[in-house]
């Protein structure tokens, strides 16, 4: 079965849980090359999303994603707020009125969400940002589509590509965001934004493992 409305809600709940669990880890990564607030910001934002659950529990997927986006914009702050807010707003626009998503839909969602993040943050691949995890994740979905892979396998491959992209940020010198002020000293550290992006996509793969 495809990704249903309830599955979309469960993914968001899984994000809330995963970001709470990784709050200190993300903050630690951010302390090394940024300003030590990414974990706390994401956790605060997704906790606020949790409070919105009652009002979106019976809505279409587009409304769910749009509400998540608006909530993140008004609660996260930092660069993460506008970036993840834009990510979910764009996802919401692609899923307006939808009650379920197949692999092609999810590819369209991730492609639009990534384009939104790039438009807002003006980062390119290799700048040591979220884009370095999201781009390979999107590309892996495209390959999976062409190979007629099952949805669950495609999501796993996408999350795996995000993980590789996230780890690939370690040797990079940051060219965007606060880490860019460090120049060469930013190399050797994993990007916190790429890490939260991976966690969110991994949560999708884990939540939707029974989808086909």
């Amino acid at each position, binding site marked *: 079965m495809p990704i249903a409305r309830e599955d979309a809600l469960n993914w968001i709940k899984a994000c809330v849980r995963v970001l709470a669990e990784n709050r200190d880890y993300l*903050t630690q990564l951010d*302390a090394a090359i*940024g*300003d*030590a*607030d990414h974990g*706390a*910001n994401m956790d*605060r934002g997704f906790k606020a999303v949790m409070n919105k659950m009652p009002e979106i529990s019976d809505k279409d997927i587009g409304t769910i994603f749009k509400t998540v986006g608006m909530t993140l*914009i*008004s*609660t*996260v*702050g*930092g*660069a*993460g*707020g*506008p*970036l993840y807010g834009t990510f979910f707003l764009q996802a919401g626009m692609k899923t307006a009125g939808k009650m379920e998503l197949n692999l092609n839909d999810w590819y369209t969602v991730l492609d639009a969400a990534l384009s939104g993040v790039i438009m*807002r*943050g003006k980062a390119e691949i290799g700048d040591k940002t979220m884009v370095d995890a999201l781009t390979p994740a999107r590309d892996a979905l495209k390959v999976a589509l062409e190979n007629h892979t099952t949805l669950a396998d495609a999501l796993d491959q996408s999350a795996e590509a995000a993980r590789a992209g996230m780890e690939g940020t370690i040797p990079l*010198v*940051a*060219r*965007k*965001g*606060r880490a*860019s*002020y*460090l*120049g060469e*000293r930013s190399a050797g550290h994993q990007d916190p934004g790429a890490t939260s992006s991976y966690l969110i996509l991994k949560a999708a793969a884990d939540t939707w493992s029974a989808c086909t």
Partner: protein
Amino acid sequence: MKKLINQAENVVREELEGIAIAHPDLVKIAYDPNFVYRADAPVKGKVAVISGGGSGHEPMHGGFVGFGMLDAACPGAVFTSPTPDQMLEATKKVDGGAGVLHIVKNYTGDIMNFEMAADLARGDGIEVEAVVIDDDVAVKDSLYTAGRRGVGTTVLAEKICGAGAEQRRSLKEVADLCRKVNGWGRSMGMALTSCTVPHVGKPTFDLPEDEMEIGIGIHGEPGRVRMKVKPADEIVEMLMEPIISDIPYKAGDEVLLFVNGMGGTPPIELYIVYRKAYEIATKKGLKVVRNLIGPYITSLEMAGTSITMLKMDEDLKKLWDAPVKTPGLRWGV
């Protein structure tokens, strides 16, 4: 972590409550979304000047709201930029019909959140101009970084633009004034100790007892170089050289010299810094015609200082001297 707080997550809220009780004649506070605004806002026919940024830099920005300076300030969580809904609501609240200037420090998050807010405000029919402050010479500006950070010059820009707005200059004129101040101001800072963000609970970076960080940012971002602590005079030389040579300031220029405390450095040390900075400026032939000394843009309890120099002309001197009445800066009234 030892701090005079109750719960880490209530720090900003409780600070705002304190400001509201302390200065009801000057400012009012809006909650959810949080912003500080002039008690007499909106001032009809006057350009409104707004700034905002992460908390932890007090008195900037909330302490600079009032007559002759800011119309509103939006505090984010500690060291985290505020959100667009805060800036949007503040913009609507203080717009007196002459437009609103957003003074934005150059940090990726601040830029993106303020851009979203300006888009939304324009959608509501309010004229908004945004000027970005990027004066930190510790950061080597290049296409491959987020650019120079906004630091000490922000305080001077808020004072001068606030005075310009009181004279009923137009939005374009006040925005141009802000760009001029940013173009003529340069800063650099250093830290002797780290600082601890309340909700993190441990120091942002490790700095051994006998070392210092030259070129530190106001959020504890590492700077240019880390080295053994040196006497104050040598430290001031290391800060002044990049500042003076950047624009560069030239002999005969009149300047404002601003020695800022990062939060944990006492006035006695700031005056030692000022003494040497004045001497270096004077030796270069610069005329220090105005000054500001004290903790105005802090990094929580970090020990350290930053030096800002601003080239002055007759207009800027008049605007600097104009009356100001805010919780954090007050003269001429």
